[in-house]
């Protein structure tokens, strides 16, 4: 039995590592011109010689780094200013659903919000601004990439905030704050001197994932970023499908990976420097003063961020029911159901493809995660938490160009199974890491007790462990669905255009803009993960209530 289990562990590990290894090889080999059929010339020279290259690199770096710094700043500001206020409850409740909304949908909603002819200007024009026509002072997307930065901050801050909030109880924040205040430190100093140094090391990995994402994102950059020149990742997308420039695309993808690695290194250096400065300042013993204005500003940032998110979603919903809505009307002048009822052909097929892929991927990744964690618990599989993060730290472009090349070469591109497999690669890390916490915390005594009563392994797993872990499993499933629904690049590159999901449909047809149908697509894409989150919240409670209801009369009878 045991050798078989080792084989099973090896199989899971290989299944996970194979696309990473092959994908890397599939990018590296053509980049150096080592595959005749895929790259005929010097990829590096071609990509560096591209007229857009230099500006694309600068744009990627600037938007990626600024967005990441802002995400960190806003997260810390939120913790310091909002943590002990009423706003915090609202914020914690809205984080998971905001996180679940796909990138592309948020991006489209933001476009509707912040354009010169967007909802904000419509709302205040012409009464406050005097604008009868949209202003020409700015455009969205802008050449500087600021719209993209806003989009990234709106989408990624909740991710970091959630990761940080999850650590607060472990850090015993309330106690630290109390001690700090007793010693006369201002609240802001309590945070910066007592809590942040410990918190930072716990959210560092999440921050790295966000940095890698911000530097290399494709779908949001297509929607919110400038088109000419675009960011490096978008520029590479325009090269990858042409066999003449495949080598160049691969070389560019490697350079992009290097860029990310360089930023990681820079961040590491910065951390050490800041750490030293902070230690010195901690020793100074300065107590600091109150922070009324600062706190007000912090609340303002949080509220505007929430407003951007919710505003975007509301706008998507409004546009999807709009027939006419001209500038500068604050509201649509004509409403209609037609965007939904007469466009079934455009909405239903991608929705079905998205759902079927998402559910399959979710089941597959939960099954894999349970298998691995059970094997790990019985000391057959090693604990490799760091490895699961690999797909999230390697830029998608860098990995998937190669994986697509391998798929093309072996003839598995365009198959539904290949798309599902690639989605699985990106959902599994989240599922494993969510379940791992619960799995390791679950008291083994329950299992031991059941074993003593004569229950076998499967009975214990099925009747004791899994039901007790229902809540984290539902959470993991909801996250898996959200991750799968949001995937753009894996579907696009591995699906050979044959599998249109809501994500690919939304980004591809955005250029064609019947804005109202785009809005309907985005609403649908947001609805699926939101639904999953609601179900994940309700289902375990419902089960528990039913169990209690079923049990209570029997227990009463037994006692009687």
């Amino acid at each position, binding site marked *: 039995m045991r050798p078989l289990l080792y084989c099973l562990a090896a199989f899971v590990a290989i299944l996970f590592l*194979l696309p990473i290894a092959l994908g890397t090889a599939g990018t590296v080999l053509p980049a150096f011109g080592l595959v005749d*059929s*895929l790259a005929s010339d010097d990829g590096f020279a071609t990509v560096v010689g591209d*007229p*857009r290259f*230099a*500006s694309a690199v600068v744009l990627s770096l600037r938007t990626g780094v600024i967005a990441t710094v802002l995400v960190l700043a806003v997260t810390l500001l939120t913790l310091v200013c909002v943590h002990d206020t009423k706003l915090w409850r609202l914020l914690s409740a809205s984080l998971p659903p905001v996180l679940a909304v796909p990138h592309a949908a948020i991006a489209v909603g933001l476009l509707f919000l912040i*354009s*010169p*002819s967007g909802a904000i200007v419509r709302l205040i024009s012409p009464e406050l601004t005097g604008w009868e*026509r*949209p202003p*020409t002072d700015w*455009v969205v*997307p*802008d*050449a500087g990439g600021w719209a993209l930065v806003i989009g990234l901050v709106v989408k990624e801050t909740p991710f970091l905030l959630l990761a940080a909030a999850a650590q607060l109880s472990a850090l015993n924040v309330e106690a630290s704050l109390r001690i700090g205040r007793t010693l006369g430190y201002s609240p802001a100093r309590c945070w910066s001197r007592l809590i942040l140094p410990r918190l930072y090391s716990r959210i560092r990995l999440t921050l790295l994932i966000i940095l890698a994402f911000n530097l290399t994102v494709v779908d949001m950059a297509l929607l919110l970023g*400038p*088109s*000419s*020149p675009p960011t490096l990742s978008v520029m590479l997308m325009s090269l990858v*499908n*042409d*066999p*003449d420039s*495949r080598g160049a695309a691969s070389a560019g993808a490697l350079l992009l990976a290097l860029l990310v690695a360089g930023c990681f290194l820079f961040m590491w250096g910065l951390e050490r420097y800041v750490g030293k400065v902070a230690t010195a300042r901690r020793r100074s013993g300065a107590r600091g003063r109150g922070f009324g204005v600062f706190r007000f500003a912090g609340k303002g940032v949080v509220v505007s961020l929430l407003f951007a998110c919710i505003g975007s979603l509301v706008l998507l919903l409004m546009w999807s029911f709009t*027939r*006419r809505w*001209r*500038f500068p009307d604050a509201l649509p002048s*004509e409403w*209609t159901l037609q965007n939904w009822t007469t*466009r079934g*052909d*455009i909405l239903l097929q991608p929705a079905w493809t998205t759902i079927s892929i998402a559910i399959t991927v979710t089941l597959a990744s939960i099954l894999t995660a349970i298998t691995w964690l059970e094997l790990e618990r019985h000391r057959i599989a090693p604990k490799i938490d760091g490895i699961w993060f690999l797909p999230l730290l390697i830029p998608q472009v860098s990995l998937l160009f190669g994986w697509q090349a*391998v798929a*093309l*070469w*072996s*003839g*598995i*591109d*365009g*198959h539904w*199974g*290949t798309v599902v*497999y690639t989605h699985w690669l990106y959902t599994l890390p989240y599922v494993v890491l969510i379940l791992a916490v619960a799995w390791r915390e679950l008291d083994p005594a329950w299992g031991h007790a059941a074993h003593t009563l004569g229950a076998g392994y499967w009975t214990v797993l099925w009747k004791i462990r899994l039901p007790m872990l229902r809540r984290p499993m539902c959470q993991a499933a909801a996250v898996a669905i959200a991750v799968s629904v949001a995937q753009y690049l894996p579907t696009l590159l591995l699906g*050979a*255009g*044959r599998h*249109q999901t809501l994500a690919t*449909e939304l980004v*591809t*047809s955005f*250029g*064609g*803009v*019947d*804005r109202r*149908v785009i809005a309907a697509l985005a609403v649908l894409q947001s609805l699926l993960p939101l639904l999953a989150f609601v179900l994940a919240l309700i289902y375990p409670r419902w089960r528990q209530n039913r169990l209690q209801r079923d049990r209570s009369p029997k227990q009463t009878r037994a006692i009687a």
Partner: protein
Amino acid sequence: MFTNRKRFLSVAIGLALFASAHVKAVEPDSPWADVVAEARGQSVYFNAWGGSERINSYLAWAAEHLSDEYGVTLEHVKVGDIAEIVGQLEAAKLVGRNDKGNVDLMWVNGENFAAMKREALTWGSFATHLPNAQFVKDSPSIKADFSVPVDGLESPWGGAQLVFIHDTATVEEPPRSAQALLNFVKEGGRFTYPAPPAFHGTTFVKQLLIELGAGSEAVTDALANDVTNSDFEAVTAPLWAYLDSLHPMLRGNGKTWPTSGEMTRQLLDDGEIDIALSFNPNEATAAVSGGQLPDTVRTYVFDNGTIGNTHFVTIPWNANAKAAAMVTANFFISAEAQARKADPEFWGEPTVLDVSTLEPTDQALFAGIDLGIWALPIGEGSVLPEPHASWANALETAWLERYSQ
């Protein structure tokens, strides 16, 4: 027909789910009854630009029809830029994937067709053997695609001409020449165009090139031939001078661009620009009836005419469902499909059929179409021929080098 495909990897991954091919024998000139018989039950993966939901809806209608009448499943593979698909086919050719290709039918013209013909990526001379080919117009732009002879390798699907749409509520008299357009933006008029290589952008740049070089025999001659035979710098110098002065006054100061012609229409409706570009003389009518433009818009062309061309569908050499692809191409040039395509309510694009050769009942289908006052008035503005297919690429590269750094 059988090629030794490198299967071992897919087997190793455990995903080799597909069965081996059953080879069928339809040829470009097979008897039509055989083609129809073989097509039944096949799926056609039609790779076509998916950026317009009206076109997507039209294709959904066509799919229903094909399924009912011929038992053919039409799958619209929505593509951003068909050049990418040409690239994928080149890759397939290089690795020797000569059957069961991903693409059965594709929407092309111009430089993409020229590339496919040059690289032998097309299947064969099927178009002239389609039963409905007898009703197709006898026109130079259908026989030669951007001055590249078609030779039956692609079947015509629709006609197009570069037109401009303006809103009479904001701009009563729009600029009707390149020079007038420059003056218009100088006086604060709002304008932008999609960045090449987006199709509408490239066409607009070609339009300017033709117009700025009009009157010069050398330029006219150069544009009709392969770009490598011309003095590119000299021919295009007036174009760059023009664009250098135009760009700083465009929306976004010429540093950020719309990505498609449809996007300019949306910007027109939003009031961010005054003039939209379209390649469909009837688009405004469709947009007004669909609630996408105000009913004060009108369509016009430059006084000296604008570029027009024909677009086609073709079957790649390695297509998996060639018979069904032929049936689809033939259906596309049926009177019923073309009349629906010409109707602004559905798509609204000029037909490639010579309506006078049709049966009276079919002629009536076309007679019943109302183009509306928003479309380009019939007979207005002459159609200028496209430059040789090779110019598009050269212009796009030069544009990117100058304006995309």
